[in-house]
């Protein structure tokens, strides 16, 4: 009886230890998020603060973001990014899903070469080709004015079909018997794709669409190279980056925090939704 009690005590002690460890770790992980939310409401300007907690709170940083459009036009950046994100999301979801469908459900001569090619291309440093992409877009005249948006859409969706792996893995788990049955009933491949495969793949469709949508919001290096000095075509990511440059940081720092909070909220919501589909998408479809 005594031994039982001591085992229980040890377990209790362990539990307390582990829970407090988790609490400390969770605090470390949550702290920067809280800090940026706090900064976005801070009334004192400037990037460097002498006190940790803000002395007074205000909403001015958010208001400035949407009204002070002379130097950094945040509403326009927001619209730019939204348009680019929607278009490239539609295009790249289509590419990814159709490529994954073909690679998973069909066997054709170029299938293995294509998959090997995708793997090899993935090993090159991503932006090694970026300057060349800029030259190509310039050569066909897509680097001026509002055509930059089209250029960015092409860039974000162009290589999408190379990251088919997750969608293909999902389609692979669908029993082939479904396809066979449909073909015996006289379905064409296109009908199988649209009427059987896609309706059964909600998790992976949601996953593909959301990742494609989030891409333009969080990429900044590609946008920076292609937009160059065209500040009316900037996306949100470049705008936020600009706010931290030396000439802007003093007056824009707290607004940067506000902007960061604003774009983080929708993305965080999408992301938390996505997480469920991500797990489902990884673990496969109809169990056969």
């Amino acid at each position: 009886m005594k031994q039982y009690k001591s085992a229980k005590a040890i377990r209790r002690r362990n539990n307390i230890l582990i829970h407090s460890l988790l609490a400390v770790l969770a605090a470390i992980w949550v702290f920067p998020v809280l800090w940026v939310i706090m900064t976005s409401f801070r009334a004192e300007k400037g990037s460097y603060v002498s006190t940790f907690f803000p002395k007074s709170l205000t909403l001015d940083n958010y208001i400035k973001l949407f009204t002070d459009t002379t130097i950094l036009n945040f509403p326009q950046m927001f619209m730019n990014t939204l348009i680019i994100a929607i278009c490239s999301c539609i295009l790249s979801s289509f590419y990814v899903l159709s490529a994954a469908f073909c690679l998973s459900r069909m066997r054709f001569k170029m299938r293995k070469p294509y998959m090997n090619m995708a793997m090899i291309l993935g090993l090159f440093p991503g932006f090694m080709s970026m300057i060349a992409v800029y030259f190509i877009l310039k050569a066909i005249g897509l680097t001026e004015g509002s055509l930059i948006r089209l250029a960015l859409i092409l860039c974000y969706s162009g290589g999408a079909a190379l990251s088919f792996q997750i969608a293909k893995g999902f389609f692979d788990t669908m029993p082939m018997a479904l396809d066979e049955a449909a073909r015996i009933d006289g379905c064409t491949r296109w009908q199988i794709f649209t009427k059987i495969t896609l309706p059964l793949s909600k998790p992976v469709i949601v996953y593909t669409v959301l990742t494609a949508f989030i891409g333009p919001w969080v990429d900044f290096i590609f946008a920076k190279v292609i937009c160059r000095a065209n500040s009316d075509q900037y996306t949100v990511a470049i705008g936020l980056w600009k706010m931290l440059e030396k000439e802007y940081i003093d007056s824009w720092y707290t607004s940067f925090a506000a902007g960061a909070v604003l774009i983080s909220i929708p993305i965080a919501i999408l992301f938390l939704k996505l997480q469920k589909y991500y797990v489902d998408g990884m673990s496969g479809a109809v169990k056969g």
Partner: protein
Amino acid sequence: MNILNAKQTKGYSPYTCLAALGQGDTTTRLSAVVMGLGSICHGQVVKGILYLAAELGYLAFMVRYGLHNLAMLITLGEVEQQEVWDEAQQVYLYVQGDQSVLLLLYGVATLLLTLVMFLIWRGSLKSAYKAQCLQQKGSHVNTFREDLTTLLDDNIYRLLMTPPMFFITALTILPLIFMICMAFTNYSKIDNHLVLFDWVGLENFAALFDSNSILGSTFWSVLVWTLVWAVFATFTNYIFGMLLALLINRKDTRAKGFWRFCFVLSSAVPMFVSLLIMRTMLQPNGAVNVLLRSLGLIAPDASLPFFTDPTWARVTVIVINIWVGVPYTLMQLTGVLQSIPAELYEAAKVDGAGPVRTFCSITLPYMLYVTTPYLIATFTGNVNNFNVIYLLSGGDPVTNLASAAGSTDLLVTWLYKLTIDKQYYNVGAVVGIMTFIILSVGALFSYRRSKSYKEEGGF
């Protein structure tokens, strides 16, 4: 399965190019010169006309631009920009000289187009021969309309894969070949070769491997740090993420959902935002130093040199990478951990194994076995991890001013500095190629041995 296989083996048809040239009739053989002729003569008029149109279009392009492009690819242009005195307007006019970059780009594009044309040519030969054979056997030759409907059925992969392939070729493969070509030229700010440049063979590679030059010694130090970084970044995240997942998944841990939420919350903030925030927090007067000062842990005017001391900076980026990466690892590993058969743990318990022993003998081997492809992908991603370094430290601190690379620069960020800031395009391209070679040797080797690759092969 049989129906599908029967349909699928149709892809490997007996109608090959060689057969077409060897056993085809006159019109089929003639389609090697006049594309589409065979198809037209064997009852596929529209298809034949399309092939013919493609050939004519290609020829017209080659005569008008293509041959010139290919010729210029050899010299990459020699005419410099010139000033010409215009008598009528009394001004100097600038005559546009050759621009080697564009010439190189057009040349490479023409080569790719020729390759595509070659594939179409093969296609036309095969289709002519196939139509001929079918006609001889007296079986049905598909009309154009029927051909179109097969695009929605057995040939749907052609329909669905063509648009993505087009964009991949134009925006990924073409630029990549273009950049690889640059490695063999003297396109750089050195000696003012930004407008006109020339082929120089392997000189750039020689310069990079010459360990006496600044470039060579920088390359080796950056390479070593890149590998150190990739190993640490990959394994610290992996081990730490796994331990955390184990702690949260423990039977006795309460409020599992809450803990998971806390960690996932930080990864829901876009990565570049959290990295920029981290950077400002770790500045000499940033939040962390302020907090430490107000807690009295460091002197009121002192600050910890997070990004100003080389060793501190290296440790800082690795630690922050843990902060950024662990939530993702946690998410990915939780599912795998839950799939470890419970019997294994029960058996271990019966045999009297403690938690450490269980972890080392069951959890770790099992996880390593299942997640090898994931680890390789993470390692590759970390070697090419531009965001974390560029947004956090920007490669700083720079200790050796001559070399352009700072202490935390990876090969990729160094590549960025070399091309965008310094405009040494040729050296940048060489660094890119070296990165690729290092990665591919490791990755291809381990991919091919990994379980998932083999399973896919036997699918």
